[in-house]
């Protein structure tokens, strides 16, 4: 089954040069697709388009087998595709970890008790129960990153969209993240600058360059990223 199918997507921020100029790709069940590209290439923009936080100026976004155009179309997409933002601080706005993780389930209409049960199960899954009652704002960068992942997983999405998930992670936490992600059944789109991380996780790689997605020359050299950055 095809989870996402982007066809010739064009996008420009108001009054700026185009960011995407005909980006196309498909994401299939069970895939972990890595997307690479230099700073400002439009990787975050692409992920935001996929969940309808931005609308393409041209092209089609087909998600979960239905074309998505209006805001209402994307409500379902956002339930089934969880986006982890590039900057954890943009995503964490509740005082405590438990409340932040419960935010998504509550939005899906769960009762307070159901949501709290969900919080506990997700935090246990990620081995993060010790953070449950901590103040989000005072976590370290790495802890924040893991909590944002938990917050998205709490919505039981079918697809994970990860925007530079290794940002702010030290080696230990990064190894842990790799392990967690490898164990998850979800299909994923992973935006990352880090070739080692990509290699460990991705089943397929693309590069965003000049507003279009192309095949990644990963095989060419270990150092591709040094060229593309």
């Amino acid at each position, binding site marked *: 089954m095809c989870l996402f199918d982007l066809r010739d997507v064009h996008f420009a921020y108001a009054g700026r040069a185009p960011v995407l100029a005909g980006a196309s790709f498909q994401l299939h069940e069970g895939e972990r697709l890595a997307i690479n590209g230099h700073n400002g290439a439009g990787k975050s923009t692409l992920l935001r388009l996929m969940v309808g936080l931005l609308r393409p100026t041209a092209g089609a976004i087909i998600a979960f087998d239905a074309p998505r155009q209006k805001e209402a179309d994307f409500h379902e997409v956002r339930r089934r595709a969880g986006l982890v933002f590039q900057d954890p601080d943009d995503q964490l706005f*509740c*005082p*405590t970890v438990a409340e932040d993780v419960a935010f998504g389930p509550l939005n899906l209409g769960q009762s307070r008790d159901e949501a709290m049960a969900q919080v506990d199960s997700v935090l246990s899954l990620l081995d993060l129960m010790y953070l449950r009652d901590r*103040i*989000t*704002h*005072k976590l370290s960068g790495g802890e924040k990153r893991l909590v944002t992942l938990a917050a998205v997983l709490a919505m039981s999405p079918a697809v994970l969209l990860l925007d530079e998930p290794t940002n702010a992670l030290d080696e230990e936490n990064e190894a842990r993240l790799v392990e967690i992600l490898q164990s998850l059944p979800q299909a994923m789109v992973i935006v990352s600058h880090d070739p080692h991380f990509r290699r460990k996780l991705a089943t397929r790689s693309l590069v965003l360059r000049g507003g279009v997605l192309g095949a990644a020359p990963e095989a060419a050299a270990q150092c591709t990223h040094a060229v593309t950055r």
Partner: protein
Amino acid sequence: MHIVDGALSNPVVIGGAVVALGGIAMGLKRLPVERIPAAGVLSASFFIASLIHVPIGPSSVHLILNGMAGLVLGWAAFPALFVALLLQAVFFGFGGLTVLGVNTVLIAAPAVAVHFLCAPVIRKGPARRAAVWGGVAGAASLAMTGVLVAFALALTGDAFVPAAKLVLVAHAPVMVIEALLTGAAVMLTRQVKPELFMKEAWG
């Protein structure tokens, strides 16, 4: 909430301007230069917060949050809210020029009042109790704003008395929302950054 040019009688407009000048002067006197960045950045936050539309039943209202502004800024709420109103008037055509003083008083005076009524309780004690008092501050400041608007209208002429009553009624549901929101905001800040309310020098 914004009263427009030409609606109020001259004595009310002039009285408002005088009180606003006093409040602004008082606020600036308690605002040392090192605090100006903080006050300016907070003033910008409240400007943005006032653009947030919150649903209420089938309709929606935009936030005022003068209670929260008062809790955080104290007397500095006068100049800070004046600046926000000035920018709104000039660039959005919202409100008016001669009534800028009145409008400032309508919003900032309740803010300062709840600062002295509620901020001392909010600074200490458990976060939950602080949140309740935050809610009280949010409701009280908006209620006071409503009363002041009604008062300004009623002072202008008997013909405005029904409109003034309507203003009071219209404020009631918004009061509830501001109370809930301010309560939650206080809850968060008390847990995350209690120092936000500790700025004695603001007071």
